[in-house]
Structure formats: structure tokens, C-alpha cells
């Protein structure tokens, strides 16, 4: 059993790095099989086709991000009772985590799937949408607690503000890749954090 799940994980790891470097379409089952040193039959035992592989990749990626956010913002909750401070600490922890990844964040699978969505079946598209919707709900939950205590200093839609966590991360990762500089996404998240402070802190300066 352990060997089977190891093979599955290995296939997913190999596919993920290939997909992030050149896209889903240019990633062939043949090259994954060769790199994993398994037979084609071995591949198809785990994934009946490329869509099944794509769906598994997206699911794993979103699960990993979810547990990462659970950890960071859970830890932030342990450190403070104040919802604004919790959110600010969580963002700081996120920035630190991104800073510590050797070579920088490898890229976001949700972005690649969004860009290549015509290649995928409805199941993959739906999973991608569900993932983005869950991130929105997660951060909106924090923001709703914040606005109860700290009225915002500008009229903002909390859905859009919650989306901004994802947006700034995605845009920041793209900037990393453009300039070959992994610090961009870190700095963009810290900039977003400064904005949150200005938006909610009474008499901030």
C-alpha cells in the first residue's frame, strides 16, 4: 500500500513541477512516466487520463494551501484576541513563509489551470472555482470580524478585499517569475498588509 501511494505522490510531484514550468498541455504522460521510472500501465492505474491527473493536482494543491492557511492564521489566533491583529499577524507569517521557500514560490497551480481552462473538463474547472471561492470565504470571515470593531476608512466591498489576498499573491508570483526575484511576492503581501493597517486602524499613521 505504501509503495502505491508513494508512486502516486511521485507522479503528482513530477507532473506539478513540469506543469508549472511549461503548462499542462506541454506536459506529456510519456515524460512523467520516464521520469518516475514506471510503466504507462502504472500511470494509468493511478490516473485514467490527463484530466484525472489535472484534477488530482488541483485538489492536492488546494488542500495544501488550505492547511497552510489554517496553520498560519490559527497560530495568529493563538497570539492575539484582536481580529485586526490576528489578520495582520497571519499576513506577516504568510510573508515570512514565502520568504523562506528556497528559490521562491514555484508557482500557483490555480493560475495555470485558470489560464488553460479550455483544456480541461468541467470537473477541473469547478474544483478550481471552488478553491478560489473557499479562499474568499476564509479571508472574508476575518474581515467581517474586523469591521465589527474597526470601521473601514474607505468604502470597500469585503468580497473584493478578501479576493485581494489571492490577487496580490498571484500577481506577486508572476512578478517573481518575470524578474527571477523571489522577494517580489513577499513585498507585495507586506504592501497589502500596510494597506489593511491604514484601512482599519483608528488614527493610523
Amino acid at each position, binding site marked *: 500500500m505504501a509503495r502505491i501511494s508513494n508512486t502516486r505522490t511521485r507522479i503528482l510531484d513530477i507532473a506539478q513541477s513540469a506543469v508549472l514550468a511549461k503548462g499542462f498541455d506541454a506536459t506529456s504522460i510519456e515524460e512523467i512516466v520516464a521520469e518516475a521510472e514506471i510503466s504507462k500501465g502504472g500511470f494509468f492505474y493511478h490516473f485514467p487520463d490527463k484530466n484525472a491527473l489535472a484534477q488530482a493536482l488541483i485538489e492536492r494543491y488546494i488542500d495544501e494551501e488550505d492547511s497552510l492557511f489554517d496553520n498560519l492564521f490559527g497560530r495568529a489566533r493563538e497570539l492575539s484576541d484582536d481580529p485586526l491583529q490576528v489578520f495582520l499577524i497571519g499576513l506577516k507569517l504568510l510573508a515570512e513563509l514565502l520568504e523562506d521557500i528556497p528559490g521562491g514560490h514555484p508557482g500557483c497551480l490555480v493560475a495555470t489551470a485558470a489560464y488553460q481552462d479550455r483544456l480541461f473538463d468541467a470537473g477541473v474547472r469547478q474544483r478550481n472555482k471552488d478553491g478560489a471561492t473557499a479562499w474568499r470565504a476564509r479571508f472574508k470571515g476575518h474581515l467581517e470580524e474586523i469591521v465589527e470593531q474597526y470601521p473601514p476608512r474607505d468604502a470597500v466591498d469585503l468580497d473584493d478585499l478578501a479576493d485581494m489576498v489571492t490577487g496580490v499573491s498571484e500577481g506577486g508570483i508572476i512578478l517573481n517569475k518575470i524578474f527571477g526575484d523571489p522577494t517580489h511576492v513577499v513585498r507585495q503581501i507586506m504592501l497589502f498588509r*500596510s494597506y489593511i493597517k491604514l484601512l482599519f486602524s483608528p488614527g493610523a499613521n
Partner: protein
Amino acid sequence: MDTRVEILKHAMQMVLSEGFDRTTINRVAERAGVSRSGVFYHFADKTALAEGLMHMFMDENNAVFDRIFAEARHLSDDPLHAFLIGLKMLQDVFTDLPDVHPGCLVAMTVYQERLYEARVHSLTRRSSESWRRRFRHMLDEIAEVYPPNTQVDLDDLADMLGVCIDGGIILSKAHQAPELIAAQIGMYRSVIKLMFAAGRG
């Protein structure tokens, strides 16, 4: 009709919807209604085609930015107000799109990094550097009149507009909701307001 432009238009559509690897010279030729040699007359190889696309992308963006921010500057002498007006106009440009945004060529290129030659990547960098210079210049003018309300690196703040647009495009694609790009530009507008507007609260 300009054959070169026609080829680029079809190639752009194909790259953004299907990726660079599926964008073969054969398929581009067929779509554009020209022969293979017709394509090769204008573009020596696929890398030349990719460079042509990046140049077209940069020219189109520059034209939109030039028009919008000149008009905004015309409407207000105040650099902060002019920038905020320009951003509002930029929101309108994205709101008026008929469908989900086809995507950002730069984002597509970096996510298919391994398929492109170094020449193309240096062009994507140039494109982003020109955005940074353009908006940094506007932010410098603003900061002279309105000292920022918090410590902020103006290069990062200049980059943040492109970040919000790219992030907005990905959000709009993931949610199949075209309005999310304008929404994220609106958020950037709010960032600028709070960073610089004096006498808050």
C-alpha cells in the same frame, strides 16, 4: 489588410487560449488565412512570432495608458487626483470588455517559461520595467505633494498595479466573473487613496 497584424492577432488569441506549444505555425497560417511561407515571410521562426506578440502587447498597453492618463491629467492638475481619475478610467476599460478577459501575455509567458527562448523573457522583463517606470513617475509626483501616510517603497507600489491586474485576471478566470478585474483595480485605487490622501479621519 495588414497580413502581419492579422497573423499576430490570430496567434495572440491562440497563445492565450491554448498556450504557446499548441500555437504552431501551421495552425496560425490556417487561422489567419495565409500560407505557411506567408507566415515565415514575416516571422523567421516561432521565437520571432513570440517576440512580435510581446511587442504588440506592449504597444497596445502603452497606447491605452498614454490615452487614459493624459486625459486624466487634462481633467485635474493635482497629481493624486489625476492618478485616481486615470485608475477609474482603467476600470472602465476592463468593465467594457465584452467577455472574460483573454488573459495577460506576460503571465502566460512566465507560466510556460520553459517553452520560450531567453530573448522572449527579456522582452517580458522590459514590458514590466516600462510599467514600473511609468507608474513610479506618477507616484513620485504624488509623493512630492502628498507625503505617504506609511513607509512604502514606491517601486513596489508602482508594481502593485500590474499585480492587481494580473491577480484580477486570474480571479476572473477562476470564478468566471469578468467584473473581478475592475474590482481589483478599484482596490488598488483605494490603496493609493489611503497611502497618500492627507487629513484622513
